[in-house]
């Protein structure tokens, strides 16, 4: 886990329990005339980088998304009780689907300047591997010796959740024993600029960054851009039991679809019918009843679409008011980590499931009236709920291009 509010599982667990925001003010954005001068960036020290990468790997390295992806991926791998040894044999049973929304834009920019100045040879040996979209999975494969499917998926803000589904299906089909899955995202003006121009991001809280990301709030004013990476190690139950690995939870089912940019859907807005179908399909795939869902980790970005999302959940589950499950949004603390969002939020969902807690959905003390009209506000925890037994947690992500993914996580009952 490399999230804007914490690095590593233990600090991240602590941070989300306490409702700690990772949103900060960045002068660079202000200097570039951004409307939104705040964002979520994982705080990684040079010393920390050296725990994951060699000095040679860090030479001419300028790809934060790949760095975060490798940090999260290596941590997940080790946490699953697997070792990292550069002299190990190729592991034919393990692969990775590690996604990203865009290739490393900082490295691209640096390369463009060198090329335009006639200095193409200055690009050195790593410009290609850092800027290819599959860079993060390629780095991870080399570090871990992965010999199964090694690829990077891309479906905008659905990327992280889609990677989980792809790895899950790979294992389910018997083609791999273990899949390292996740998503990562770069940060900074070149990634966030387009969203700033679209006016979909928050610009009213530049002086008050921790209050800026306000999913489900009446005063939500657009999302706050974030970055980072989240990773999960998925493994067949037999293999995990054989190794006596720590099992955080079970991927019980998943679904993915698209709205085809028809009906209420467009390039940038979801087709509500598609969202509802995706949720229902995931539930069916998991073989559960909608009433079994204890908690929803929503997509909930803090735009005008939050109320539509709540309505889609309520319709798909046929649960309203006090009968609605608990729901929260991690984005209130991390911002919207784009290609990494689904992965970071899924890690949060599994930590809740494993430890029976529900982190607070901060910055929505003033729940939007359109949301309060559908579900009871008691279902949006403002404070940490501990010792809250959880069996099933649903996670959904939606992305530009009108794409949707929904994953159902279930407690592994030994």
């Amino acid at each position: 886990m490399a999230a804007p509010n914490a690095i590593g599982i233990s600090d991240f667990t602590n941070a989300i329990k306490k409702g700690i925001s990772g949103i900060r003010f960045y002068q660079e954005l202000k200097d570039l005339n951004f409307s939104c001068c705040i964002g979520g960036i994982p705080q990684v020290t040079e010393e920390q980088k050296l725990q994951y990468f060699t000095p040679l790997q860090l030479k001419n390295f300028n790809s934060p998304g790949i760095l975060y992806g490798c940090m999260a991926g290596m941590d997940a791998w080790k946490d699953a009780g697997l070792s990292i040894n550069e002299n190990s044999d190729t592991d034919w049973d393990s692969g990775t689907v590690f996604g990203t929304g865009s290739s490393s834009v900082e490295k691209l920019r640096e390369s463009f300047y060198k090329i335009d100045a006639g200095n193409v040879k200055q690009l050195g040996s790593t410009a290609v591997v850092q800027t290819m979209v599959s860079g993060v999975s390629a780095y991870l494969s080399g570090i871990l010796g992965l010999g199964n499917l090694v690829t990077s998926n891309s479906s905008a803000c659905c990327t992280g959740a889609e990677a989980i589904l792809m790895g899950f299906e790979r294992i389910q089909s018997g083609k791999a024993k273990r899949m390292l899955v996740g998503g990562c995202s770069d940060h900074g003006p070149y990634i966030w600029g387009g969203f700033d121009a679209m006016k979909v991001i928050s610009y009213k809280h530049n002086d008050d960054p921790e209050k800026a990301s306000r999913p489900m709030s009446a005063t939500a004013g657009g999302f706050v851009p974030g970055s980072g990476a989240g990773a999960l190690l998925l493994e067949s139950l037999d293999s995990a039991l054989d190794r006596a690995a720590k099992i955080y939870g079970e991927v019980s089912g998943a679904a993915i679809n698209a709205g085809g940019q028809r009906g209420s859907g467009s390039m940038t807005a979801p087709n509500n019918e598609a969202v509802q179908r995706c949720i229902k399909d995931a539930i069916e795939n998991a073989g559960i009843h909608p009433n079994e869902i204890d908690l929803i980790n929503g997509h909930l970005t803090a735009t005008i679409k939050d109320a539509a999302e709540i309505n889609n959940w309520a319709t798909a589950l046929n649960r309203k008011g006090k009968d609605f499950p608990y729901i929260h949004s991690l984005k209130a603390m991390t911002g919207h980590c784009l290609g990494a969002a689904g992965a970071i939020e899924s890690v949060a969902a599994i930590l809740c499931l494993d430890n029976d807690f529900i982190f607070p959905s901060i910055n929505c003390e003033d729940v939007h009236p359109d949301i309060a009209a559908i579900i009871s506000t008691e279902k949006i925890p403002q404070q940490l709920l501990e010792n809250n037994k959880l069996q099933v947690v649903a996670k959904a992500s939606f992305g530009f291009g009108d794409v949707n993914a929904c994953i159902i996580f279930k407690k592994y009952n030994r």
Partner: protein
Amino acid sequence: MTKEELIDKLKGIVKPYVKNEEGFNNLNENTDFLNDLKINSANLVDVILDIETEFDIIIDNVSMEKMLTVKAAMEIINTKLAEK
């Protein structure tokens, strides 16, 4: 610039984004960009950029949020032109 001239200019600007021809043919002061012309909400920023270029004005974020109808657009354009 007369009101009619301004509406004519706006008509030319929004034309490429319009999804509802009937609404466009009946465009008047009370026309709503999203509901009557069925302009994709994401395209509103492009409409505003085109207005900025056409009138050589800068439209701030707060004004931008209000610019959902022809009437609001006209008021904001006139205010910004007067400030020049």
